[in-house]
């Protein structure tokens, strides 16, 4: 009884000393905490260093998405490059989990540290391709999928990619 009384009074004293502690509140619109580059926020689609779209419309991001918020349609241009005809992310569903970024083989889809996406209308949270595409390469400068991939497109035949050896003719007998 006496012991618990003392502990209660000690607790009240501890509470009083908290008067002079540092506040933990960050007064958000006025003050901001620092967000690191890999923080997971608004999703963007990045471009090659050359300025071409990185996305090859492989649907892996849409398949990986646990809430099915990504929809896209693949198509091909005249050079044989695949690209999405439309690419739509419904941010009112998106949980910013980053699975799409992990699934992406070409570093096209990336999460950015920006999280301020409030809107007055739900339809305004559905981002189309032109809202998602940015002008730069995002977190992976210098990476160009078609420059390292073995796929033949116009201006680059088989075996002409970076670090790629010429293709072996398997039907030839010569070593």
């Amino acid at each position, binding site marked *: *009884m006496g012991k618990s009384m003392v502990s209660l009074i000690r*607790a009240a004293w*501890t*509470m009083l000393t*908290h*008067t002079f502690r540092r506040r933990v509140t960050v*007064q958000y619109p006025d003050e901001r905490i620092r967000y690191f580059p890999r923080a997971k926020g608004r999703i963007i689609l990045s471009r090659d260093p050359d300025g071409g779209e990185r996305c090859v419309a492989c649907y892996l991001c849409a398949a990986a998405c646990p809430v099915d918020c990504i929809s896209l349609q693949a198509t091909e241009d005249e050079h044989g490059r695949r690209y999405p005809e439309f690419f739509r992310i419904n941010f009112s569903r998106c949980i910013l989990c980053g699975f799409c970024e992990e699934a992406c083989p070409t570093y096209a889809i990336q999460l950015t540290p920006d999280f301020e996406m409030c809107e007055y209308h739900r339809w305004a949270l559905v981002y189309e391709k032109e809202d998602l595409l940015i002008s730069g390469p995002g977190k992976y400068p210098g990476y160009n999928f078609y420059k390292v991939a073995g796929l033949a497109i116009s201006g680059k035949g088989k075996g002409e990619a970076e670090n790629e050896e010429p293709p072996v003719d398997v039907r030839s007998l010569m070593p």
Partner: protein
Amino acid sequence: MCEAARSILVVVGVLAGAIAIAAGLIWVERRLLALWQDRLGPNRVGPFGLLQVMADMIKIMTKEDWVPPFADRAVFVLAPAIIVVTALLSFAIIPFAPGIGVVDLNVGLLFFLAMSSLGVYSVAFAGWASGNKYSLLGGLRAAAQMLSYEVFMGLSLMGVVILAGSFNLRTIVEAQEDMWFCIPQFLGLVIFVIAGVAETHRLPFDLPEAETELVAGYHTEYSGMKFGMFFVGEYIGVTLISALVVTLFFGGWNGPVLPPIVWFLLKTSLFICLFILLRATFPRPRFDQLLGFGWKVMLPVSLANLLVTGAVTLARG
């Protein structure tokens, strides 16, 4: 004529002051709780967030005033009024400074005890009239708690009454000019503060409205300004108990240099802060612990205090 005008002025002043303080406490409590929890509290509306009170008032006034169809309508509407009326009536007997006070009752203390007993009806009625089992449980708890703590509250004050030789609060304050009663009546002070917290059912003794068990206890079904009345009633109760602690144990308006009314208000606000500190610190006991603590600890201690005080006073002649 001048005398009548003056007393009317005092009545209006005390009424307006009590309600204004109760409203201001909404902001004070939130800021102080935040202060002690390393947060900031409401600081956006107006300077230091002071206009938060206005925002809250506008919100609560414009809320839908709804009486549930299963409630006992007349009693349901009456209950919140009782708690505010009894708490405000008790302010009548408080001597704020020499010459400032609504009435100078010779049975002042008894009047306060009577009013706080009447306050029990408010919560009991509210719990009963809501027609909701959680409300009823809250009302029952409130009635049991307030009735038991009333006993020790009365007994703890008797020591002060013996020392001062009067039930009149003005006489009690004047008797403390040499020594505040918090020294000879320290036990009485502790018991009165604990009983006062239980009487206003604030944390740690807020079992009648324990959110974790009873939704919101007796005011579960209340909304809008009817709920606001319970809220205001609670804050007026806190102010009242603090003012009484100051009057009975800390010399009321007595103090050097500053004018008496300033001393009174200073001391009272200190005790209001203490109430909020208690809320910020303590966990809520179980209900049987609450009643057990009351009857097994508080009652014997307050009786012993009364006995010793009486014996000492008798021996001194």
